């Protein structure tokens, strides 16, 4: 899938981010992500992986270097982008359906098409029976499903995910990983996924980028040549295990440098 669509979606070149106190978070990071790729960014804490996402989203400004998203500046590209945060970030005073429809509402989509799209997405993440529930009635996994449905409601071409499943138990995490792959197969968006979990990264990605800390920089890259359609059983194959070990090793190297 990647080879025939080698059109760049994201181009980061010489990206450096320094805070006011002079601490360097990212040092000259260059990375090109093609349309249709699923790239996981993995690295120890302090390597600036969340900062990379914020820069791509235009929620932070680089100290130097350039970012282009589908040929545009991050701010101009926002209509293409959806951001999924570590917390589900649902509005507690809105029902599931109203939360899923938030993006469409903010973009001025009328009530009828909005409700249509909303119920379609709620069904897609399997929460039909909870459409009128409030967030406090949902489990952590359900909240994250709502968050995903909300992100997909505006038909994004690029999904930025900042450790979205970090707070979930392993069972829910595995199930949601499989669901993310299914949704991607249907909708074919590009994804940049930040995570702490090597297994999760290997399972989801077409490519893994390992960042090293202090200052954050690209340590290694791994193409993940596993079949495009992946199921839970893939996790038990030797190829999968081998890739997990390779990436884990690179991660350890990044940490001990």
């Amino acid at each position: 899938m990647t080879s025939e669509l080698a059109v760049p979606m994201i181009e980061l070149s010489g990206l450096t981010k320094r805070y006011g106190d002079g601490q360097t978070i990212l040092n000259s990071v260059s990375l090109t992500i093609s349309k249709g790729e699923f790239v996981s960014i993995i690295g120890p804490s302090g390597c600036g992986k969340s900062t990379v996402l914020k820069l791509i989203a235009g929620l932070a400004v680089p100290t130097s270097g350039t970012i282009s998203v589908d040929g545009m500046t991050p701010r101009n590209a926002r209509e293409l982008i959806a951001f999924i945060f570590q917390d589900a970030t649902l509005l507690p005073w809105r029902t599931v359906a109203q939360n899923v429809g938030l993006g469409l509402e903010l973009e001025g989509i009328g009530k009828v098409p909005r409700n249509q799209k909303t119920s379609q997405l709620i069904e897609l993440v399997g929460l039909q029976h909870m459409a009128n529930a409030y967030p406090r009635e949902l489990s952590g996994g359900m909240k994250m499903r709502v968050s995903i449905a909300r992100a997909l409601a505006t038909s994004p071409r690029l999904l930025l995910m900042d450790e979205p499943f970090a707070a979930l138990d392993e069972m829910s995490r595995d199930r949601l990983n499989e669901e993310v792959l299914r949704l991607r197969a249907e909708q074919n968006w590009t994804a940049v996924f930040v995570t702490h979990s090597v297994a999760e990264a290997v399972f989801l990605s077409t490519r893994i980028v390992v960042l090293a800390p202090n200052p954050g920089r690209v340590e290694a890259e791994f193409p993940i040549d596993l079949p495009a359609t992946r199921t839970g059983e893939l996790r038990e194959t030797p190829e999968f295990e081998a890739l997990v070990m390779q990436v884990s090793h690179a991660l350890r190297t990044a940490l001990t440098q």
Partner: protein
Amino acid sequence: MRQHLRTAADALCVFFALLLLWQLILWTFHVQPYMLPSPAAVARAVVARFPSLLAASAITVVESGAGLIASIVVGVIVALIFAQSRWVRRMLYPYTILLQTVPIVAIAPLILMWVGGGTAAVALIAFIISVAPIIANTTQGLVSVDENLVHLFLMHNATRGQVLFKLRLPHAVPSLFVGIRIASGISVIGAITGELYAGSSSVGGGGLGYSILYASSQLQTDYLFALVLAATVLGFSFFFLVMFLEWYFLHRWHESALKMEVE
């Protein structure tokens, strides 16, 4: 429900114990009725002068209610302005503290001099004393929104107005209710204090504050107690009305409202 009954029963026990203590003091020290009337005398005064108690309470309800509603409207508007920038807050916030610390007893005569007596002046005094907690709590609610939620709105190119009315304002509603709960009590105190200075606006009687002044000058101590009782009931009613509204608007989604229900 059983918990509720239990709490009510405990409170009632204390009430009757206090009544007993009151009566005991009267018997042991032979206190004159005009100094301290017996509980029975107060009860008789409540029954005998019920129409005038009700009339006085009605006047005070209107004054403190008008003051409270005005303080909610103005307080929310001011908080919306405060939420716009840290700079505005820094410039103007100290003045809301000033509102809270100014001795209402001292400025009440001034206000009467400027506005003249009557309902409007008393409502204005109730407003001045109750607006500060609403401004403070609502502002806090408006600015304490999770940064990621603001980012979420920005990712959808939300306008400033959308962030304010679809995110900050609904997020501030629980804090607004905390402010209203505090304000509801002190608006009654403000109105009664105002009435002490404003006197009666209509022929035949004023609000509770005015009636308290009148009863004490006439040494009608039993009626005075009945008036104090009415003022207390009034304060309680305001408080419970606000509690009910809070529950009504928040119980579906807000944790604190949920807890209130369970307690």
